[in-house]
């Protein structure tokens, strides 16, 4: 259509002017983060985008069309890098929306007829809005990906099962226990019980900040599951405040052996497996 090609024509012929104005505008914007991105990099990105934009605008202003794919791919690329650098969403959006003014300037200069001018302005503004929204979506999507990945990493990091001695496993819990984590913890523990043939597992909750009824319930579930596999559980690392909370909440831990420290729990576990710890003669004479 005639209108569309006109936009492409104007942009194509005045690319340098637009680019200069646009980059100036971005550099003067209050949202600019000079600490996160160099000026030359910004200039390069703007030039590349304007190139692709001009090419795509020649074929039409429907962003859904395949001809706009290079533009979208490029946007995806820079949005991802910006998210990783920690750019705020407003800065990413400004990248697109700041293009409006330079574009409008050249259109205003090129189109004389008022009616045509309004139509061209409208086409341009809708087009840029669409691209802007697309960029925001991308930004959001990338942020969510980052969060999701971090959650998964956290889940893996925080549930190690360690073998202390033959037949004794320890499960040092760090952080709050929710249902999802309990599931992972339980599976890991049971799997390790099968692998090592352990008969005693010590669940250390020194790193659990608070114990409410839900967390207690999850703990008891883990204990019950381990017991079904033939392994006794000892809960250790109960801090004074937590002991108070547990009693105040009326959580019944009477069926589980509880110890204040991991060392105590380990001694009990050794006793039960029939092992003893003695100091060697050398250290006795020294002491």
């Amino acid at each position, binding site marked *: 259509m005639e209108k569309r090609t006109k936009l492409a024509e104007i942009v194509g012929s005045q690319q340098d002017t637009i680019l200069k104005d646009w980059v100036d505008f971005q550099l003067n914007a209050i949202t600019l983060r000079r600490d996160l991105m160099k000026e030359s990099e910004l200039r390069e990105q703007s030039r590349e985008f304007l190139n692709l934009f001009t090419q795509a605008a020649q074929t039409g202003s429907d962003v859904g069309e395949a001809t706009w794919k290079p533009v979208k791919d490029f946007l995806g690329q820079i949005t991802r890098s910006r998210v990783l650098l920690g750019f705020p969403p407003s800065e990413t959006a400004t990248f697109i929306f700041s293009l409006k003014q330079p574009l409008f300037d050249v259109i205003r200069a090129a189109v004389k007829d008022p009616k045509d001018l309004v139509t061209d302005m409208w086409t341009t503004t809708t087009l840029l809005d669409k691209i802007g929204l697309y960029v925001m979506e991308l930004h959001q999507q990338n942020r969510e990906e980052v969060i999701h990945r971090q959650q998964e990493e956290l889940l893996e990091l925080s549930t190690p099962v360690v073998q202390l001695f033959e037949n004794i496993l320890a499960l040092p819990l760090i952080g709050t226990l929710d249902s999802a984590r309990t599931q992972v913890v339980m599976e890991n523990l049971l799997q390790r*019980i*099968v692998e090592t*043939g352990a008969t005693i597992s010590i669940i250390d909750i020194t790193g659990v900040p608070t114990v409410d009824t839900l967390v207690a319930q999850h703990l008891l579930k883990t204990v*019950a599951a381990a*017991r*079904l596999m*033939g392994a006794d559980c000892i809960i250790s690392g109960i801090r004074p405040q937590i002991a108070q909370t547990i009693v105040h909440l009326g959580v019944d831990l009477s069926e589980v052996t509880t110890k204040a420290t991991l060392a105590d729990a380990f001694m009990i576990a050794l006793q039960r497996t029939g092992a003893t710890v003695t100091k060697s003669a050398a250290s006795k004479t020294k002491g």
Partner: protein
Amino acid sequence: MERIPILKMGSFLLVTVQVDMHDRLAMTLQDDLTGRIVKDRAHGVLIDISSLEIVDSFIGRMIGNIASMARVLDAETVVVGMRPAVAITLVELGLSLPGVRTALNVDQGVELLKECIEERAQGNGHVAG
């Protein structure tokens, strides 16, 4: 009809569940096992469920019931070889089988049974003395 075999090992009975239990099979096992405990005068029962992959609330309850019945008949019962997935399922179903002894494998189960029976013999001795 399909039955779960009950093997005699000394004074123990060994039940190995090799197939997925369905309701009728569990009921049959309950009948057979209680009958065998009385007939053989067994002091201990090992129920090996290492091949059991799927449990529902009924089967879970039956395992608990069978163990309790054996105890009533004066035989110590140990459930051995429960799979992690089964253990998690039972706990989630709220069936943590209280009062049922458990062990990881048949070896540990036999050890546990022997200990239990020894303890009991000592306890009885004290009462008699």
